Every structure is written in C-alpha cells, then in structure tokens.
C-alpha cells in the first residue's frame, strides 16, 4: 500500500472522469485558489472595517452578542475589570458543586488574561485547588512528557470548572474562536461541566466572514499558516434534540457556559 502510487492513480482517475489533463492543473489551481497576499476589494474592506473599530463599535457588538446568546443558553456577562471576574468565579465555585466525584477543583489555561485573574488567591478561602493545564516541554524526554500529559489530563478530568480565554468572539452567532496553542489545552473547555471564558471587548468580531478575512488577509493576525493545526468554534453549551426533538443542554461537553467580557 504505497500512498503515493494510490494517490497518483486516484487523481488520474479523477482527471479521466473530468476529461481534463494534468497539463492544465497549474493554471486551474492559480485560478481557483485566492491569494492571501492579494485580497479582493471586498475582503480588503472587511479587514479595514475591523481595524477601524473604536470603543463604541465594540460595545455595539457586545450588545449584539448579548441578544444572540440568549436562545443558545450562553451567559454573557459584561464586567468592568478583571477583579469582578475573579469575584464572580469565586461566587460560582461557592454556589455550584461537581458533577462527577465529590471534590471541587478548577483548571485553567496558562494565558496572560486568565493568569491575571489570580484564581488561586480568589479561591484560597474556599480551599479549592486551581490547576494550570500546561507544562514546558523544552528538554523533556518522551517518558517525562508522556507523564506530564497524563497529569494534565487527570486534572482536566477531575476539575468541574474550566477557565479559558479565546482568540475572538463572533457576535452574530455567539461563537468563541480558539486556536490551539501549547499553553492552552483543548480539553479545558471540554471535559469540565462548566466552562468559563474571559475576553476583552476588543476581541469582538461580527461574524464568520470577518473571522476568515482576518485570518487570511490581515498580516498581523496571519501566522506562518492561515490556521494552526487545530481550531475550535464554540457557540453556547453542548445541546441535543435527539429524543423526540426535545432540546436538552449538556449532552457531552460543558452543560453551562459563562462568558465574561471586560469592557474596561
């Protein structure tokens, strides 16, 4: 089973079916793919609009988000500063209990905004541990790395609240956009029963179209690749309507999602 032979054969079959030859492939590719360095006027205008947004525009988007979030069961909470978020999370921990197991614990990303909440201090008097789901792999051998991965996984399984930030938030669909990064474990927003996300209002975008324009045509947002190896969009907590089309929240992922937007 040589991959390359099967691929060549496969592509050849397609060309025969389409009645076209290999020689036109280059020209067709140039025509069908748009160039990230050469945006169409429409795409360039989208990027320009995003870049020219001011405080009041971001507040308008936040307002739009708050409306769209309601039917999705997503709790959007605008707050003045980080201290308010820490306080709110401490309250949440006080008022809620774990779904699996008996002991309360919280897991978080290693992210500047999340770190600045100083949850360890905020939860100290409740005696609830706060884990950071990250480790530095530099110089680690495979076995140590594998053990570190297992440890972080255990923490994410055991914690009932996961605290993250996000790259962007799309107002129109109430969507959190998260690119995967080494210090931002994917399962922090997946395994705990409650997901808490914290962002600044300047991270608001209107919709998917704006997100893609930014990822592709904005040199400041674009990384070496247009997208990392993994990215997630989350619009509200997990839900299902598979039994008699009755809507139920919390099928697999978090059952509750709180989004704190710092308005500054």
């Amino acid at each position, binding site marked *: 089973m040589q991959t390359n032979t099967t*691929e060549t054969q496969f592509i050849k079959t397609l060309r025969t079916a*389409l009645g076209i030859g290999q020689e036109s492939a280059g020209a067709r590719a140039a025509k069908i793919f748009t160039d990230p360095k050469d945006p169409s006027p429409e795409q360039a205008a989208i990027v320009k609009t995003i870049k020219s947004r001011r405080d009041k525009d971001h507040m308008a988007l936040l307002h739009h988000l708050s409306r769209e979030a309601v039917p999705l069961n997503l709790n959007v909470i605008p707050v003045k500063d980080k201290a308010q978020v820490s306080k709110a999370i401490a309250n949440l921990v006080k008022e809620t209990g774990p779904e699996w197991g008996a002991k309360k614990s919280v897991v978080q990303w290693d992210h500047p905004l999340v770190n600045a909440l100083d949850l360890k201090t905020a939860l100290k008097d409740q005696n609830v541990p706060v884990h950071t789901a990250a480790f530095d792999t530099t110089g680690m051998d495979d076995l140590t790395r594998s053990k570190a991965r297992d440890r972080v996984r255990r923490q994410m399984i055991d914690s009932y609240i996961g605290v993250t930030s996000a790259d962007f938030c799309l107002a129109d669909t109430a969507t959190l956009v998260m690119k995967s990064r080494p210090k931002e474990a994917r399962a922090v927003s997946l395994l705990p029963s409650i997901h808490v996300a914290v962002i600044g209002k300047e991270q608001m975008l209107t919709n*998917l179209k704006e997100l*893609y324009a930014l990822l592709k045509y904005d040199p400041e947002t674009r990384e070496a690749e247009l997208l990392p*190896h993994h990215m*997630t969009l989350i619009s509200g907590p997990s839900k299902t309507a*598979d039994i008699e089309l009755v809507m139920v929240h919390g099928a*697999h*992922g978090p059952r509750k999602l709180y989004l704190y937007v710092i308005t500054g």
Partner: protein
Amino acid sequence: MSHDAATKKYAQNAASAIKDEILQKALNKIQSGLGKATALSYQNLDEGPDLRLAAHDIREKTINNLDVVLTRLAAKIRENGGRVYFARTGEQAVEYCLKIARQHHVKQVVKGKSMVTEEIRLNPAFEARGIEVNETDLGEYIIQLAGEKPSHIIAPAAHKTRQQVGRLFERKLGVPYTEDPPELTRIARKALREKFLTADMGISGCNLACAQTGHITVVSNEGNIRMATTLPKVHVAIMGMERVVPNLEDHDILFRLLSRGAAAQKLGGCVSYIGGPAGPEFPDGPEEFHLVILDNGRSRILADPKFREILCCIRCSACLNVCPVYGKIGGHAYDATYCGPIGAVLTPLMEGMNQAKDLCLGESLCGACQQACSVNIDLPRMLLELRYRLAYGDDQWETQPVSVAEKTIHQAWAFLAGHPALYRAFLRTFALGQKIFPTSRGMITKMPGPGAGWTRSRDIQPLSQTPFRKRFKKLNAKKAHG
C-alpha cells in the same frame, strides 16, 4: 436480491411505515418543525436566499477541479504532520482504518456521527475483529443499542419515542426506567464519558474540508465529535472525496448554508478545524491524525455530465425535511445508507440503477427538494434522468431497460397519437368498454392487468362520454351563431 423482490420490499416497507402511527407523528414533527424553520433561515441570510445559488457555483467549480483541490488538501495536511490515504473502494478504506487500529493495539473506538462510515460498513468490520466501537452522538447511540440503522441523516433516532428510549436504556444499560429526555440524556452522557476517557482511537467523518488551509471541519451540537477528536491518541477521519471547498471565503458561505440546511441554525454548536496531529509541545490532542479520502463509486458519477451535479451535495439533509415521500415513508423504507431525495438519486448511482430503481421511481418530482437544498441542486432533473436511463437502458451504467410492458404501452400511445382516426376509434371503444369496471362516486376503483397497480392505492377518472373534441366543436358552433 432480485429486482422484483427489491420492488416488493420497497412497497412493503412503505406500506408498513405509513401504518406506523409513531413514525408518522415523528415525521410530521420533523417536517413541520425543521422543514419550515430551514426555509425561514434562508430568508434571513445577510445576502438573502440567493446565496444558495452562489454556493452552487462554488460547489460546481470545486467538483470540476477536484483533482487540483484534493492534491492541495492532501499536501497541506502532510505538511502539518498528518497522513493522507486515498481509497478507491470502501473495502480499501476499511482495511486502512483496521491497519491503523492494529498498529496501535486499539481495543476501543469512539465515533462521531458519520454517514460515510455507514456507507463503507466500518462498524461491523471493526466488531468482527473484536474491537469495540461506540457511537457517541446521542441519536446514533440509541440506534446502536437498539441494533437499528439511522432513519434520518442528522436525526437518526427521530423514529423512536421517549418511552421506547427509556425501555431500551433500562434493558441495555441496567438503569431504572425513565422517559424524561433530560434524564435520558444524562444517562447517556455518563455512560459515554467513560468510553471517551478510555478509548484509544477516535473516528469521525468530515463535513467540509478547506483545501487552501489544509483542514477538515467537523460539526456537532452535542460536543461528542470534539471529544472523539481530542481525547484518544489517534484520530482517523474519513471523507467522501467531494466534501471540500478551495478557499476560506468559500468555506464561510458553504458552512453557513450547511448549518441552516441541517438544523436551521446560524452556525453549528461545536466546530473543529483539524489539519494535523498535536505536536509534542501540546498538552493534549491526538498524536496521530489520518485522513482517508474516499472514491467508492464517486468518480463514476463524476464522469457522467448528467449526474455530476449530485456531487455538489454537502449532506445537510434539508431535502428530507420537505419531501412528501420521505414525510410519509420515513428513512428505513429506502433501505439504503442515504435516504430521502438525495438517497433516491445517490443510491441508484452507487448501488446500481436496476437494484435501487424504486427509490427514484418512488419520488414525486414535486421539486420541494431543490427549493430546500442548501446548494440548490436540481434533484428532480436527476430523478427524471435516472428514469430515462431505466426506461431505455444504459450500457455505461450496466442498466437494463426496466419494464418492456411500459415501454410497449408508451410506443403504442405514441403511434395512436400520430394517427387521429385510430386515436378517436380507440377512445370511443375505451369509453364504452370502461363501463365494465367497478366505480364509486363516478371514479373507477379497480382495473385489471397493468392498470391494477394504479387503482391499488388510488381511483382513476373515467374517460368522458363526450370527448373534449366534440364539446369544443359545439362551443365554437354556438359562438359562431351567437
């Protein structure tokens, strides 16, 4: 199965589905709820409902350049450390997945909902080798526990009542009986969480890949696909070769339409973009990622210009939610991987026109499916084209002419229509002769021979004793005199 037996089975399935009150209620709920909501959601698009036409253009352009688009997708994924396997047949795809499972000593698999894995019969192949396969979409999980097949592309257990699910869980999972949907969901959540945490391989389909960035995207509202593609060490995704678009801009348009067509949503609840494995510096995510790109008869469809358009389909299932035939007979009556209007076109092309002829003959040609289609595919045109090939036979598709009797009748009719004197004589004779058939309220209720098929389920209007020709003449005469 012989062709006659297949026809008998389709008719029987349909008849028992129509008598099944529970199913009728469920189908009604889907169509009056989802069907209407989707139509409204197209109206509410920023660009208006014509975005469906733009989407059709994108899909056509993609399919016409599929060689270039797939080459780019595969190259980008390999650059990102993923492996790509091109499978000509379903068997090859299954073999490849099994090979990966063997390499990793896999004992337990968690799956995201995927129609293409139904198509290639992946689950039975894994189970035959002693590997446990767990469906994790709640609907699929219910179906798997019940040992049934999905009856709808995105609502696979729509035909089951909460009481049936309650009894099923009581029997299979040993939990106390409940018929409360939130409680039933909680039971499944608990059982499946165990599976997610212990599985050593995740398998998913692919809703729509983006070639330029080199990613597949998978959507779920439950979050189960995020689980299945994040927690196990190995992730294998299988995609029909047509499920791709070239650029992010195209992805935006198609993805929004997919969400609306499938569930009348602006965007699916959880979307994962997957372009490769998580590198060693990442604390979680699969360490290996495989993408299987599947042909399995699709290139044959691609080669036929009249049917190529069906490859534009993104399997949103909106056509099921409006089709009057699906709305009465449900998904199981089609007895195929894909049901509804999309299945009625795809199944004959994938499994043989003669074998699956009833699926396209059974549809009504009303055109509701095209109106509902998120990418405006002309399904009625292809249903007619299939009927044409079935009537005349087609060597390319190894299709035999279906009914010699029907063809002869049509030929005789054409001859009559071309000979007015004979035509008039025929009508006169038939208008007299029809008096021997039983009637009720002026309608013929029973005819013998080839006419019996018609009157089995509906009455037929008798020929008028005064033909229109005569009345027309009389009217004209009146007009001339008056």
